[in-house]
């Protein structure tokens, strides 16, 4: 008797969710193939071209450019420039230069799209509480859902390679830009908004001449996070064939090759530090007179 009560949970039939989701994914793939196909056809090769082009530039030139940029960006100090050059030499020395360029391309392209989509979405969100209430749970979902879960349908839509890597990082990395754009604009003080209104600004004048400049620091912090997240996604995206430093890590994982894995991991860390400091300094520079 007691047994039967305790087993009551087992009597509930399994609710079919996995299958409908699969069907739904198939449906999307078919229905929107008019979108996925051309993207696959043109954008995939484009990404590889970019990476190929970067690899053509002699590494020494790349290092010099990075060093000069770092020097001026940090207010004519040598720290970041020195670190960048040593780090890049290390990566080159470990024969990971092509992988570095692949990873860099992935990060830049996905961050770029994350920002140009994220900022407008953040702006719309800041202007409407309804939109904010709708978008916030979606952002939560994008960030908390284990990345592997949406790697699978992504691979289904875009097959394998760089493209699904970009797409997956895009989804994973976009939320901070959206969130902080929204926050930055909402934080602009009431008096400043009133001032721009009182002088007869239009909606766009208020946005571009007051709100966005005031929110710039916050938005830049969001972009910094987006770039870092997109880098962190690169390793995971290698599971669906994205090339680059991440693939080296995965490969050594499969072969239990601790040494190679460590070196590739170091490469990712070096790139992460360089990118982080670059975007942070960009922010500091721009915000100086505020």
């Amino acid at each position: 008797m007691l047994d039967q009560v305790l087993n009551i949970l087992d009597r509930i039939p399994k609710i079919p969710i996995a299958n409908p989701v699969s069907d739904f994914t198939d449906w999307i793939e078919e229905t929107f193939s008019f979108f996925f196909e051309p993207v696959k056809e043109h954008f995939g090769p484009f990404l590889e071209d970019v990476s190929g082009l970067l690899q053509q530039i002699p590494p020494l030139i790349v290092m010099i450019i990075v060093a000069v940029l770092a020097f001026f960006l940090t207010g004519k100090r040598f720290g970041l420039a020195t670190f960048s050059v040593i780090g890049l030499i290390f990566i080159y020395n470990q024969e990971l230069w092509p992988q570095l360029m692949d990873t860099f391309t992935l990060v830049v392209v996905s961050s770029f799209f994350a920002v140009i989509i994220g900022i407008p979405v953040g702006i719309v969100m800041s202007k409407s509480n309804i939109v904010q209430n709708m978008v916030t749970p979606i952002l939560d979902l994008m960030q908390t859902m284990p990345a592997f879960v949406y790697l699978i349908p992504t691979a289904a839509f875009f097959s394998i390679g760089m493209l699904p890597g970009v797409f997956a990082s895009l989804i994973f990395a976009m939320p901070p830009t959206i969130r902080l754009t929204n926050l930055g604009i909402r934080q602009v003080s009431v008096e400043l908004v009133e001032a721009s209104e009182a002088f007869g600004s239009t909606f766009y004048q208020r946005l571009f001449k007051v709100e966005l400049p005031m929110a710039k620091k916050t938005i830049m912090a969001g972009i910094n996070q987006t770039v870092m997240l997109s880098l962190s996604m690169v390793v995971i995206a290698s599971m669906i064939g994205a090339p680059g430093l991440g693939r080296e890590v995965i490969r050594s994982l499969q072969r239990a090759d601790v040494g190679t894995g460590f070196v590739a991991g170091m490469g990712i860390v070096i790139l992460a530090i360089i990118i982080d400091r670059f975007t942070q300094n960009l922010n500091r520079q721009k915000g100086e007179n505020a």
Partner: protein
Amino acid sequence: MPVIKVEKLTKVFGKRPKEALKLLEEGYSKDEILKKTGNTVGVNRATFEVNEGEIFVIMGLSGSGKSTLIRLINRLIEPTSGNIFVDGKNLSKMSKEELRQIRREKLSMVFQRFALFPFRTVLENAEYGLEIQGMDKEERKKKAKDALELVGLGGYIDQYPSQLSGGMQQRVGLARALANDPEVLLMDEAFSALDPLIRKEMQDELLDLQERMKKTILFITHDLDEALRIGDRIALMKDGSIVQIGTPEEILVNPANEYVEKFVEDVDRSKVLTAEHIMKRPETINIEKHGPGVALERMREEGLSSIYVVDRQRNLKGYITADAALDAKKKGIKDLTEILSTDVPQVSLDTSMQEIFNLIHDSPVPVAVVEGGKLRGIIIRGSVIAALAGSEVNLENA
């Protein structure tokens, strides 16, 4: 025609303004309405007019609805009911586009905490209003510079607001408003964030500007001294309603109700009223142009027994009496300096009533109000006594 006219203007904050509005009409108070409906009455059926070239002060304690009222006038806050007319046009019925035009051309606002754009230089801040009208760069730069010169900041145009002191920042705020050449300045506690000395300086400058530019100014303050100093007329607010409108003297001497009385009670009237408040425009003659004949003629016209003498720059030279002028004319003396009396009883603009009273008691001529050597006004015995008597009567009533 008044520049601004406000009719039964009402603002209710909250979810059910209609209901609150009905209760207001039925005579319920702000507190009762808050308890009954959860709605806050910001402004309750305010009605007043502001005339051209006037400084109209709205005074009230914190929370009395002053900021809400001034923001209703340029519709930064949408009214719940009532009408706002600017130059006879009804703002409350205007489309967004028409409203924007009015804000650009007629109404400029100065804010309590300055509300300058921190990422713009002083000049760029002053340009803002013109920039959004699409004025070309050279022209708007020039106008913004002129406005900054006017407030004495010509040398700071390339600084950022954070590099300036509070007083200077508010001058930028003022310049930004003036650059548009608006008809009306809306000033919400514009000087309240400044320390007392700077505040007084700014008040003087505002009066100065007003004299030169003849703007209509709607000025908000919670400070009675400030209201008395700069207001041509003062409206007193309490719980969203206007409880009295009058000249500074009317407010002081005839408080409309207990609330107004309380407000002015702790002010010793004989101290608050200074020379500036009771002085009259002086009849004068010019020592460089006029002789005894003109002096006599002028005195006869105005029914005076003496007249003050100034030079072209209005520097006070002395006075002459009718007797002396008559004498001189008979003797054929042309030069006024020969009959000039220089023992002038003088006070400055902020001399208190008490002192003036003592001085005027045994003076044969009106007291001269002098600032920086220039004759600003005269005070006759009658006005001192009237003012003091008024305060006496009111103290007894209190």
